[in-house]
């Protein structure tokens, strides 16, 4: 048994503790030490996940590098980890984004004018970076856990550091009541997700009771899903539906799915750009990931029953999110609503129950993470320069800061899924996958791509083009640190758009396994032609 | 003698104790009333034990006595400390819990 996965999760966790314990103080030197330590820890985590990805064999068994440590034996709970193709790409996404988020938020935690000697002034930086590392550790465990209970614990525990990140660190661009708005956002985030978590807890216990009744007193995911697939564990249909809804509700809040989304714009709008990226690009992905792994694997029949209803909700989310984004006055809230629209696509791909849809949804999670991070972080750089989140305060930025404007445009183009960029691949797969089973919903969802072009380009037009607005002259262009954040994201967006095969090779087997758990096969074409793989008819 | 009579006596004592708790203000008296209630229930327990011919009731009565003794220790300590700070033994004066 290798300890690689445990190590991958333990490094950021230990890093969080170390960072939090670093000597306090408001001097520039102390802050810089803190930041360097945290960044080094996240880089080490990235290196470990790279090893995980390299050791992962796409053709091998579903869960690899598995390890299991006994935890609460009487309830059949063990700390088991394992990685499948879907988990692997999301782990990579997390590990790539966290160092970039740290680099982007380099100065966001520098003390605001706070009373000298207060906790605020003394331990802010340590707190901020420790919280980010804590979130990373918990997200990694959630992606790697193969035990339902372990997953639940970390899925919920993530809320604690996130709550403090949202409530404690703002972007300093809000109005006079920014503090009030921020704590409102933090509490709203917490309450929504806690409610979802509680419902899920009930369902987790319910699942255990049902399984224990049939002499399967365990939380081990592979055991449970195999037993369900073999028919050894037969859950009464009504109970299955209830349990499915319990799990799904928690994930739908986290994802977020319309109409459970309203916490997201507040949370993303009030927190720092880095935190906003953590929320939408990393933490929320646990929700959609869990739908794919837990909802479908544990409750295949209920998933099929509810799939049409969920597809309709996600379709509403796509169109609704895009339309509301068009009407936003606040840059960060606009990005948040755009994300809601994108999460609609992800959930749609998952519940279309086709291999194109689910591979597309998985790629979508990765690509949305990368492209939204680029878009949001550049928006954050812009906001930090002018000290306002209002679109109306900007204009003509491309004249004074062309590189900033250019990267912002690239982020926007990625968000609207321009072909050649990564999001296009995933969005088209989701659309094709949905269309092949539910043509009407597939066609309706394509309208989302027109709306996406509208909000992305309107935002660019209003902020970047036209005459230079007052208080914009002399606005500095992107600094080296900021370029170092954006450049890898842009490069990844292009690379994964042109050559996504490494990812699809990883994801495909896991998706096939998921679909076979649900007993679904892709609809066959009406008049199939010979497969056209790799230049066969050359 | 009919054991049911003991139950009547126990009920009477319990009622007296309960009314005392509800009516009196002095903390010490209140305390004694609580003791009265506890002992009333002890009497009932012992009686039941006798009526049903097993020892469960008596055992529980012992537990009650131990708990009552512990309660006296903690309770009197609280009362004394309240008396020291507020110079009164009336329970109506200690209503800081109200918001």
């Amino acid at each position, binding site marked *: 048994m290798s300890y690689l996965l445990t190590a991958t999760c333990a490094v950021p966790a230990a890093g969080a503790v170390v960072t939090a314990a670093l000597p306090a103080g408001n001097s520039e030197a102390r802050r810089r030490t803190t930041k360097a330590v945290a960044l080094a820890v996240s880089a080490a985590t990235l290196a470990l996940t790279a090893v995980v990805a390299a050791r992962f064999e796409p053709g091998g068994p579903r869960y690899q590098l598995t390890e299991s440590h006994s935890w609460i034996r009487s309830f059949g709970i063990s700390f088991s980890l394992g990685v499948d193709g879907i988990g692997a790409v999301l782990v990579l996404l997390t590990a790539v984004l966290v160092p970039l988020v740290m680099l982007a938020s380099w100065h966001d935690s520098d003390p605001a004018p706070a009373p000298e000697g207060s906790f605020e002034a003394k331990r802010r930086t340590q707190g901020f970076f420790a919280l980010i590392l804590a979130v990373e550790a918990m997200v990694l465990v959630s992606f790697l856990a193969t035990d339902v209970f372990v997953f639940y614990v970390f899925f919920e525990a993530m809320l604690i550091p996130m709550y403090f990140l949202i409530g404690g660190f703002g972007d300093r661009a809000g109005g006079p009541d920014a503090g009030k708005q921020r704590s409102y956002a933090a509490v709203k985030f917490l309450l929504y997700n806690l409610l979802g978590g509680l419902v899920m807890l009930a369902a987790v216990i319910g699942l255990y009771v049902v399984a224990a009744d049939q002499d399967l007193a365990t939380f081990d995911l592979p055991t449970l899903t195999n037993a369900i697939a073999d028919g050894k564990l037969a859950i009464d249909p009504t109970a299955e539906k209830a349990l499915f809804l319990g799990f799904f509700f928690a994930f739908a809040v986290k994802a977020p799915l319309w109409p459970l989304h309203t916490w997201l714009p507040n949370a993303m709008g009030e927190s720092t750009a880095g935190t906003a990226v953590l929320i939408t690009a990393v933490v929320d992905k646990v929700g959609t990931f869990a739908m794919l792994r837990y909802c479908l694997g544990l409750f295949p029949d209920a998933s099929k029953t509810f799939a049409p209803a969920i597809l309709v909700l996600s379709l509403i989310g796509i169109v609704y999110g895009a339309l*509301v984004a068009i009407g*936003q006055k606040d840059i960060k809230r606009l990005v948040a609503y755009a994300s809601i629209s994108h999460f609609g696509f992800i959930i749609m791909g998952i519940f279309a129950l086709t291999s194109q849809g689910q591979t597309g949804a998985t790629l979508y999670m990765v690509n949305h993470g990368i492209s939204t991070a680029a878009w949001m972080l550049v928006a954050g750089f812009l906001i930090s320069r002018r000290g306002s989140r209002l679109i109306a305060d900007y204009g*003509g930025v491309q004249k004074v800061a062309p590189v900033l404007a250019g990267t912002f445009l690239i982020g926007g183009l990625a968000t609207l899924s321009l072909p050649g960029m990564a999001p296009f691949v995933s969005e088209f797969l989701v659309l094709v996958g949905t269309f092949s089973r539910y043509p009407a919903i597939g066609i309706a969802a394509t309208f989302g*791509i027109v709306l996406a072009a509208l909000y992305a380009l309107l935002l660019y037009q209003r902020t970047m083009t036209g005459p230079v607005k007052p208080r914009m002259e002399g606005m500095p262009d992107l600094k080296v640190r900021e370029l170092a954040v954006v450049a890898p994201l842009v490069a990844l967006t292009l690379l994964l758009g042109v050559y996504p095969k490494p990812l699809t090779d990883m994801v495909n087997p896991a998706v096939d396994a998921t679909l076979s758990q649900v007993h679904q096969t892709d609809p066959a074409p009406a008049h199939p*032609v010979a497969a*056209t793989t790799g*230049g066969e008819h050359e | 003698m009919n054991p049911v009579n003991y139950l009547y006596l126990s009920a009477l004592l319990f009622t007296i104790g309960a009314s005392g708790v509800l009516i009196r203000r002095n903390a010490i008296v209140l305390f004694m009333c609580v003791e009265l209630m506890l002992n009333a229930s002890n009497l009932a327990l012992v009686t039941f034990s006798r009526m049903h011919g097993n020892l469960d009731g008596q055992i529980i009565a012992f537990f009650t006595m131990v708990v009552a003794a512990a309660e006296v220790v903690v309770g009197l300590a609280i009362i004394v400390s309240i008396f020291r700070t507020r110079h009164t033994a009336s329970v109506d004066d200690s209503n800081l819990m109200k*918001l």
Partner: protein
Amino acid sequence: MNSLIPLLVAVPLAGAALLLLGGRALDRFGHWLGTLAAAGSFGIGLVLFAEMLGRPTDQRPVREFLYSWIPVNGFQADVAFQLDQLSMTFVLLITGVGTLIHVYSTGYMAHDERRRRFFGYLNLFLAAMLLLVLADNYLLLYVGWEGVGLASYLLIGFWQHKPSAATAAKKAFIVNRVGDLGLSIAIMLMFVEFGSFAFGPVFGAADDASEGKLTAIGLMLLLAACGKSAQVPLQSWLGDAMEGPTPVSALIHAATMVTAGVYLITRSSAIFDLAPDAQTAVVAVGTVTLLFGAIVGCAKDDIKKALAGSTMSQIGYMVLAAGLGPIGYVFAIMHLVTHGFFKAGLFLGAGSVMHGMNDEVNMRHYGGLRKYMPVTFATFGLGYLAIIGFPGLSGFFSKDKIIEAAFSKGGTEGWILGLCALVGAAVTAFYMTRVMMMTFFGEKRWQPDPETGEEPHPHESPKVMTLPMVVLAVGSVFAGALFTYGDAFLKWLEPVTGFEEGHPPIPAAAVTVLTTVCMLAGVGLAYTMYGRTRVPVTPPVGSALTRAARRDLLQDDFNHAVLVRPGSALAATLVWFDSRGLDGFVNGLAATIGGVSGRLRRVQTGFVRTYALSMFGGTLVLVATTLLMRSV
């Protein structure tokens, strides 16, 4: 030597990447680098062309597989290129005309501080368009398709500091996106129907599919073509696209972008041939647009917008021809190529005029320029003769064939189409003569610059600008004759698109005579109105039709009333609903819970006896309930 094909795309793409990422170090010679990339691509195209000519007809198409792009079970998208005669024609047109426009731009954009970026975008434009015509499957074509949209967005909005340019760029992209919707739905339909979206397999299996499915695919492809080729109802972006620098207009209108729709329809001939209803729709769109564009072209005073209307109309001819099936495909493409020459020449000429006239675009402020700009006048004049179909010039041959094919459609339909095409020819002659008269003839109506008060001093443009115009003028004169000599173009393209001899109800010679008569009538009318009479500096009020045509036949007003206003109202309503409705519900719930808790809090009086009483009461209730339940 198939490995040259990817280079066609790679060279301009590398040029674009270099120019956009290179930084200021490349400012001094960046424009020549971009031109070199375009010319390099053209050179590769010529080599491939020579090779292709050297092979027997049935071995001319080649396919080049690069790598597997998106493999997901049944869904197999490859990056693979296909170079056949149709693609070859486009490659040469795109790179050839594109290179000339690059050369021209080195002069036109000489004083723009962001010139390097401009050439980067131009290279990107070429790369995207080449990818579009070289792709061997619809999904890769889609990449080029939207790449063209992106490049046009960047170029139309090149002068972003002007709000009108930024708006026009966004509008072009969005309207194109609506068309893209059609392309993506068509690809999805193909995937569901055939399990593939590569040209070869889909066209091979098209026979098996039901006509309904094919019609649906065809209509969706038509929607896509409408967006890119500015056909009714998605034509509104083309006029506004004139906000971009003039070489961009030349590029969009002649070599790239708007020709993409015609390419798509011709490429998908196997589908359209089996879906007559979709073909009818294509023909209808083409016919309506050719008249629409022509009418708009008559009313515009802005020289570039008049030419834009003309493009719309000429592309309408091509779409019409493409919709006619095998009798028209070849002529659609032939007209596309000849149009590429003369329209590029006309736009570059217009740019040259603007260059000499302080960027003035209003033709009412021109007049008598032929003496001051002789080369521009001569090249523009030859382009003019070509577009109106003056006998012997290139437009004559290609347009005449299309009108003939329209008559050959047969029945009432054929007559209607033929007559519409004839009317279109007359109107084309009218508005182009109008442009010619107002610009180069008549008295000077020059106006001082409204800001600086500077009088215009028209002068001929530098050699680097006039040279491409001359080359294009030569092409406009001879291309048509060259193509029809021995049916060379027909024989070249027939293996790809197929060909059927059309049988017009009236003799072909009569069609030619009719076309020429219509053309002369149009010229004559315009000469009377704008050559013989004075042109007022301020436009007359005009008839209702003129006023509508000046506003692009109210297309923007329509879009605004039907789409934009309800759309933004909907967005505003949803924003309100989100914060007041959904969030209001949640906040209301929270407030209710808070209120109830506030009430309940009062029960806690702080008196020990109250608590004791509630305890006793509770016990009493419990005991009573238990007893009651027992007794029942």
